């Protein structure tokens, strides 16, 4: 048994320490919001927060996560400005990559409250979307950013 902290809870999981976090989340904890897209850290569908920073859960093992806090899409509150902006801007199409996109955007705005287009490109270009929702992703990030700036809200 290995202990794992996810979305504020501590779990004991019967997974080998070399198992990628992605499969611990999906197959052991049934947190299926985190998606498998490439298995090589190339597409970002499996993005989660580890101690607040965006990480590819397919490319980090259970052992490497250790005692750090994991936040998945399910752990980001429904009223988070990023989730709200995603709905307002009608970003999702097939929706498969969107949990990873939302999590990556949350990490970006945590680190940079007012990102430029260039900074959004840099932070978000590791998250692929085959439906081509990029224009709306960019718009939603700007919208969430200005809402957070206005409201002075600091979301974890």
């Amino acid at each position, binding site marked *: 048994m290995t202990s794992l902290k996810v979305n504020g809870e501590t779990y004991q999981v019967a997974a*080998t320490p070399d*198992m*990628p976090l992605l*499969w611990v989340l*999906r*197959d*052991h904890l*049934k947190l*299926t*919001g*985190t*998606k*498998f*897209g*490439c*298995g*090589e850290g*190339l*597409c970002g*569908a499996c993005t989660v927060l580890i101690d607040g920073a965006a990480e590819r859960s397919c490319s980090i093992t259970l052992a490497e996560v250790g005692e750090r806090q994991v936040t*998945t*899409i*399910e752990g980001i509150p*429904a009223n988070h400005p990023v*989730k709200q902006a*995603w*709905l307002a801007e*009608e*970003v*999702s*199409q*097939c*929706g*498969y*990559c*969107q*949990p990873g996109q*939302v999590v990556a955007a949350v990490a970006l705005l945590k680190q940079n409250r007012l990102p430029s287009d260039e900074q*959004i*490109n*840099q932070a*978000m*270009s*590791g*998250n*692929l*979307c*085959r*439906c*081509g*929702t*990029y*224009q*709306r*992703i*960019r718009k939603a990030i700007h919208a969430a950013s200005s809402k957070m700036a206005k409201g002075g809200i600091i979301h974890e």
Partner: protein
Amino acid sequence: MSDQQVSRRDFLKSSATLTGALVLACYVPGLAPCCSAAEAGFAPNAFVRLSADGSVTVIVGKSEMGQGTFTALAMLVAEELDCDWDRVRVEAAPVAPAYNHTTFGLQVTGGSSSVWSEWQRLSEAGAAARQMLVLAAAQAWQVQPEQCRTERGSVLGPAGRRSSYQDLVERAARLPVPTKVRLKDPRDYRLVGRPTHRLDSPAKVAGSAVFGIDVHTPGMLVAVLMRPPVFGATLKDFQDSKALQVPGVRRVVAVPAGIAVLADGFWPAKLGRERLQATWDLGPGGALSTPRMREEYAGRAATPGTVAAKRGTAGAALARAEKVLRAEYEVPYLAHAPMEPLNCFVDLKADHCHIRTGSQFQTVDRDAAAKAAGLRPEQVTLETTFLGGGFGRRANPASDFVVEAVQVAKAAGQPVKVIWTREDDLKGGYYRPMWYDRISAGISGGRLTSWQHTIVGQSIIAGTSFEAALVKDGIDDTSVEGAADLPYAVDHLLVDLHTMKNPVPTLWWRSVGHSHTAFVVESFLDEVAAALGKDPLICRRELLKNKPRHLGVLNAAARLADWGSPLPAGHGRGIAVHASFKSYVAQVAEVSLDPAGALRVHRVFCAVDCGSVVNPDTIRAQMESGIVFGLSAALYGAITLKDGRVEQTNFDSYPVVRLDAMPKVEVEIVKSTEKPGGIGETAVPPIAPAVANALCALTGARVRALPLTPERIAAARPGRTT
């Protein structure tokens, strides 16, 4: 669908108050009725169910793969039903004849056809329910139905009478279903035609939307397959002892599709697969190489093929033309690469098989599963989950990912979920065919007089169960669509086809034949314009004089882009127009070259005429979507074979557009009262030629092969010898 929902339909089937085959068609065997009439609600047909709690469920037979069909189709029902949109939810339909495509005759989502094929049927379904609710209220109030009207989920009667739909559900359920309904005048629409938020967005943003890959049942095993290394190879022998040593691996089974490693989860199954040792008889597929195929295709392109379209005498007209242009174009195999890798859950019992997957092709997959399981089709149920992208890959006449999962479940004797890796997806075949085109134009007296186009490539349809219906006189229409129906005015036209055979599996890829023909036709039209000394927009306008809808989008896109206005230094612009799936799209692309010689697409102006509109925001989204999808193919996409092996493995060797390459897209929807056309695929075809034409306008380099790589661009620049 939950068991409870199935039970409701089951109850409805046996309800004496409900008539008609549509409800009967929803009957799911093996589940007993369990609920009262009030719980069951009111389901006048297979498409809508009102519950006593006030919710309105629209049962949609189309697969939601991002194109917004759940929302658009629900809007059609809700519009005629006059219900409260906030109470509308959507449920994926089971496989049943009631949900067969109104034109294609089987349950399928494809051909950008959902809105045009369902508009009438779903409008009538909503109107029938509304009419019954009105009658129920009129009877309760002892007034004439004509004295009542409806508004946002309520019936309003004389003297201020008002009753909500939910209070009328029980009474309405006892009324006969009307055979004739009156539909609204489109001028009275309150929902259809207005930008409407998607019903599936909240679950998708929350991370709770269930895709096939998310399906889980207790006792289920996850399987990862080792498939043949080259197309058509057969298994000789394998060793599984090392695989079985991986903790969590339960068993290894050989099935016709390959060798399946079954484990407690994906990770041990994948580790187990890595430890399998297998030897294969490669067969002729082991010799395949794309350069050699290309050579063969090019050779065939120089010979006459089977005639697909003919007007006048193109050959003779070319021979006497003052000026003749000849060019050869080519496009590679492409993978669909939906973000959700293929997967399929199968629970196979002695007399029943339950499948849960993201399918675009329910009838075909159900029947193929039955055959593989040794059951009758009615013993197979298929639950359609959300699809993490489809683009055609999840509508395979061969049902490859479903059939192999049934094979694995059969061999394993317990429920399984097969998951493909990205490598499996890119190497697994069913590609957009590779094409080679030879095209000529004759010019005399300052005008285009003849056009001759020879197309060489594999048929998607040949060899499938659709061949008899869809291949006519040796012509697979999907091989020549967009070329044989050339919209440009030319007296002499000849389009012919060589259908090639080889072991690479091919499949429709978003926009099918148009993804290839639009690139060739619209690029070459710019070559013709240049030869005539005309601006590409003006040349198109002249040749499309009698094509008002082409002209409409062409002019709208040009206006949007301010065609002819000065551009920043180092920028070029190109235009293309293409009709597909009953819609018309024109795009203007603005490009530059970066210091490394790679294309940057800065802006795309897109005008679309898709006839009558349901959800304008979805149309905009699908234009953005098609542009990005087509741009990935235009800039990067190629599947190549060496010694029979696919050379691409993952998104590093099969790159797609990322956010930093995303152009600014502006969309204009041209107002139209024509019949609705398609949306999901129609923005894909024009983008590659618009970009290629912009590149040529900027540099003089006419690149006639996709993708438009820096190497090809450099080689095509004027002054270079190749």
